[in-house]
């Protein structure tokens, strides 16, 4: 019944408290896109693709000083147990907004006035952490598209499970009665946090520890993102 999930610092899937789930990234997976990436974060699977910089349509949306960013986050119908009906839902609107804001200052949008950059993130299989997997994929897709950025954005959640501060929760861990989930996106190079959300019930102290743990996670992720981009580059020039 109420057996503990975490014993002696080891989690149900064998990970340590500050360890991320297995992360696979492949850049350049959508032929027609300017940049793209496929990410498997544990059992969560995401594809992201970038189109642009390109013309703005309709034209009255143009900004004469910088490119506009159009972000879509979407779960395909069979990515979840209870089929997701296609179309508008508020959760997706909110996630697209915070992701867009997480990326906006990182991309040198001023270099492309009157242009648009479109980012699409599609969740193929949704377990825990779809939004952090999606941002991680989008960041690689942007780099793959050659869009100039101040650095790679990496993203992971940390939180609390049975009193432990843990990195990158699974669905099972998210269901613990005292669970907190705090997803973060970070310009890993500088430690600047550009996305942060949190649900639960925590003291300021705990929040601090959790956020610090995402720093470690994002640095780990950034390395894997970089490797994926190098692999793609090598494959292209091979």
């Amino acid at each position, binding site marked *: 019944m109420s057996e503990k999930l975490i014993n002696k610092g080891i989690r149900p899937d064998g990970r340590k408290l500050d360890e991320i789930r297995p992360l696979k990234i492949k850049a350049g997976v959508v032929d027609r896109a300017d940049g793209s990436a496929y990410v498997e974060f544990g059992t969560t699977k995401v594809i992201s693709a970038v189109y642009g910089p390109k013309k703005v349509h309709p034209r009255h949306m143009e900004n004469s000083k910088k490119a506009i960013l159009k972000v879509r986050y979407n779960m395909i119908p069979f990515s979840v147990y209870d089929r997701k009906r296609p179309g508008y839902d508020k959760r997706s609107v909110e996630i697209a907004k915070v992701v867009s*804001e997480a990326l906006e*200052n990182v991309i040198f949008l001023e270099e492309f006035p009157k242009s648009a950059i479109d980012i699409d993130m599609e969740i193929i299989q949704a377990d825990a952490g779809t939004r952090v997997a999606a941002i991680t994929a989008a960041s690689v897709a942007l780099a793959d598209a050659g869009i100039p950025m101040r650095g790679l954005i990496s993203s992971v959640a940390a939180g609390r499970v049975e009193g432990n501060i843990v990195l990158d929760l699974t669905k099972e861990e998210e269901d613990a009665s005292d669970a907190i989930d705090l997803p973060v996106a970070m310009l890993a190079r500088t430690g600047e946090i550009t996305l*942060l959300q949190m649900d639960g019930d925590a003291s300021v102290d705990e929040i601090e520890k959790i956020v610090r743990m995402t*720093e470690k996670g994002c640095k780990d992720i950034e390395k894997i993102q970089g490797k994926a981009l190098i692999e793609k580059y090598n494959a292209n020039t091979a």
Partner: protein
Amino acid sequence: MTAKLTKDYIVNQIKRNIRGDDRKLDEMRELTIERGVSANAEGSARVKLGKTEVIAGIKMDLAEPYPDSQDKGVLTSSAEFLPLAAPEFEAGRPGEVEVELGRVVDRGIREAEVIDFKKLCIVEGEKVWRVFMDIVVINHDGNLMDASGLAAMAAILDAKMPTIDKDYKIDYNKREKPLPLTTIALPITVMKCGNKLIIDTTADEEEAIDTRLTVTTNESGNISSMQKGGPGGFTVEEIVEICKIAGKKTDELIKKHFKSKKN
């Protein structure tokens, strides 16, 4: 051009700890809360925070519980910018700013378990009370998040539950018990301007600076919800600092405006 100049001016003033209305950086505008503004609602409240004005209202009916919480009532929140509130507001499907506003207020209430949702269960797995929290913005002069959170909390405290008969028919004319509460929770939004942190921003200030963190804190000082917004970023130290400011301000607001608590 003028717009740009104005923005730069506001930013420079804030960096020198000066605001257009002579407030301190961590000072809220005058706040008035008026309960019971729509008698057909189970509960309602109008909040004026400076010139910003929002109304929150609660309606209740019966519904099935969510599959993953068969013994709990249901909360459904939405926020709407009434077209009358600002020239840029338009009728239509809620935009992303409205969606975010509704969802942040919703999570603040839900995660802090402000309402004791277990007490809203009537027949487990079959029939529970559904609480609609609707927020309408009447005048937009900045800091809609905090104004909306205050209005929502005041509407919850104002609410009286309708009664049901044996056939689960609702009698809205006979409202008796208050909503069962466990705590009070309020969002405080802190914005960043250079290395300054500033609260309760006006619409003009929000034109000039745009990176914010909203932190919802409850009566015991714990945080139940956070939401970063805007294009910029924060350091860990700034986040911790903001949490502390939010806790302090929430405590002040609860003491001044929300005496009664659990029941």
